[in-house]
């Protein structure tokens, strides 16, 4: 039997000064990888700023920043390439860590002819089967039972793969959260649930989402361990994810991880947080910035410096500008792609509708009728 723990304190590895907390379980990570972890988080911060700027310039329909939550994305660090991830819409770092390129990222946002999802979804809804990263869905929580299903499939197939899924604390109010957690508990599926508790579901604060003492405590009801981790402490996030992955691979079943963090900015480009929350709240967030903490830690180990950071930012900025230009210049996907991938083979009624649209697109008479 698995011991059920009701979590109280946050798991931590780094204090706010970037020093190892005494007695902490520190993840084993090579120096180059530690640097890469920070580089990914720092790049996300920069990319988010540039993306929001181009959104405000009217070039993008929509964007969602993840400022303050970059450390939670790094839950994927302990995973293997053959593990599967069902992301939510605020884990940019998870994509970049797995190898999703800035080029793919920008093409998706512009829904252009090189977008791997063929312009089928609004910005931020990526999908990459070569990385085992599954399509992002706007309705929240649908990915939870799906991730469990993938994990059940892994178990049935006798592999030692694991599935990981991300969602916000607001999503824990959805039926799919309950359903997915319950299926995982009962089937002992090798799945890891990451709740990014950033305090806000658009305009609704966390105390209006639950009366429970924590989100991690919900794990008790599903017969799995619940872990509360400091979501601004990237090494702690990686450590608890590594423990959960090890548990899952050993056949011990699922783990719920609540990463306590903070949504520093709005939900998306479409809302104004000053309408619903006290501006003093994000202003007080400063010392908890996950980037500061990790960079202090790396500097303390002589693995990072302000100069290296400047070089990184220049490189990412240049790369961003390069792929932005390419993404902007590409047109929309070919009109025929509108009808592809609805089914494996196109049935007669879609062929008929495609023929009509193509005829209308090619004629000088827009009033053509099927």
């Amino acid at each position, binding site marked *: 039997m698995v011991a059920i723990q009701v979590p109280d304190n946050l798991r931590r590895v780094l204090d706010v000064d970037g020093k190892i907390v005494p007695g902490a379980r520190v993840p084993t990570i090579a120096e180059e990888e530690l640097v890469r972890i920070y580089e990914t988080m720092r790049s996300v911060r920069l990319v988010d700023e540039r993306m929001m700027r181009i959104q405000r310039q009217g070039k993008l329909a929509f964007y969602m920043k993840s400022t303050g939550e970059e450390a939670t994305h790094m839950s994927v660090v302990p995973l293997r390439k053959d593990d599967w991830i069902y992301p939510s819409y605020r884990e940019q770092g998870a994509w970049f860590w797995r190898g999703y390129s800035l080029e793919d990222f920008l093409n998706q946002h512009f829904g252009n002819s090189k977008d791997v999802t063929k312009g089928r979804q609004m910005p931020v809804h990526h999908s990459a089967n070569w990385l085992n990263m599954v399509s992002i869905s706007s309705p929240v929580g649908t990915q939870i039972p799906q991730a469990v299903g993938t994990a059940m499939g892994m178990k049935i197939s006798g592999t030692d793969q694991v599935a990981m899924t991300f969602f916000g604390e607001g999503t824990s109010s959805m039926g799919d959260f309950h359903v997915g957690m319950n299926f995982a508990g009962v089937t002992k599926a090798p799945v890891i649930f990451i709740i990014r508790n950033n305090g806000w579901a658009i305009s609704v604060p966390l105390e209006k989402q639950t009366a429970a003492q924590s989100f991690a405590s919900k794990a008790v009801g599903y017969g799995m361990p619940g872990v509360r981790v400091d979501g601004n402490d990237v090494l702690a996030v990686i450590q608890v994810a590594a423990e959960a992955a090890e548990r899952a691979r050993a056949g011990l079943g699922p783990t719920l991880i609540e990463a306590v963090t903070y949504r520093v900015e709005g939900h998306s480009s479409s809302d104004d947080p000053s309408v619903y929350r006290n501006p003093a709240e994000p202003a007080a967030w400063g010392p908890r910035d996950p980037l500061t903490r990790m960079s202090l830690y790396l500097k303390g180990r002589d693995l990072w410096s302000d100069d290296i950071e400047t070089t990184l930012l220049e490189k990412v900025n240049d790369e961003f500008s390069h792929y932005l230009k390419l993404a902007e210049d590409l047109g929309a996907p070919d009109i025929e792609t509108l009808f592809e991938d609805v089914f494996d083979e196109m*049935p007669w009624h879609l062929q008929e509708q495609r023929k009509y649209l193509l005829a209308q697109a090619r004629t000088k008479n827009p009033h053509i009728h099927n």
Partner: protein
Amino acid sequence: MPTMNIIQAVNSALRIQMAREPKAVILGEDVGKFGGVFRATSGLYDEFGEDRVIDTPLAEAGIIGTAIGMAVYGMRPIPEIQFSDFIFPAFDQIVNEMAKFRYRSGGQYPCPVVIRTPVGGGIRGGHYHSQSPEALFIHTPGLKVVLPSNPYDAKGLLLSCLQQDDPVLFMEPKKIYRASRGEVPDEAYTVELGKAKIVREGEQVTLIGYGAMVSIMEEAAIKAEEIGISCEVIDLRTLLPFDLETLVESVNKTGRAVVVHEAPKTCGFGAELASSLYERCLGVLEAPIERVAGFDTPFPYSLEHEYMPNADRVIGAIRKTLEW
């Protein structure tokens, strides 16, 4: 050749698929040890084990949500929803997720889930064990919808569904689950999807329907013949993509059509069929296309036989097209 009813035919198809496809998994409420409340999965738990014939927790959104995750991962899940009346907790997973996975991923993630679910009234089941919600799913881009009327087609169509890569809602007419019997080969065979079947040839009126309504239409056609009216009866079998070509050919011959389904009339599938036929056959039509359907009320308990289409109502519609 053995004689089977629809449940036995479905069971036979499932057994064949489970034996030949190691990635096939059956999941749902009571599908394991008990073999399903209608016994469609009877014996499969003992034969293929609890890992592949899974008694799930009682939650339709979980059954379909996990089936989607299995399919996206490369498995071939065959979930059962115990009654199609209970499908709605999974509606979001079906219409927003399962049906759209291939499309919204740009073709990267096919989602070959085949959902089996009993459908229709006439079993004294009241509102929550009798509905026919097919139109909601036919209206969902990305889903195939299949509804057989007899054991041979049930097995052949189900095996076809299990061999292709699109999500399917496979609806089984529960009123005739046991009543409909016929010769069914023990071995594997397929009935092509998207092809209707002319079950009775005739000259004056085309009757179009599916599932439990096919035998009602046949009964009406026999009675109509006694009063000198010749009816052609078409079993649609696949509702999406539906076989418009066969319907058009028949209506071009007869000049009259009656569409029959149990589901409520307004925005029912009959409206789509009638509209499609008007677009193509208006010039040859001798009368407006008639619809015989369930009423636009919730499905009743005590008055279910008054609610459901029957042969007399179909004959009434046939006469109307002739007397117009």
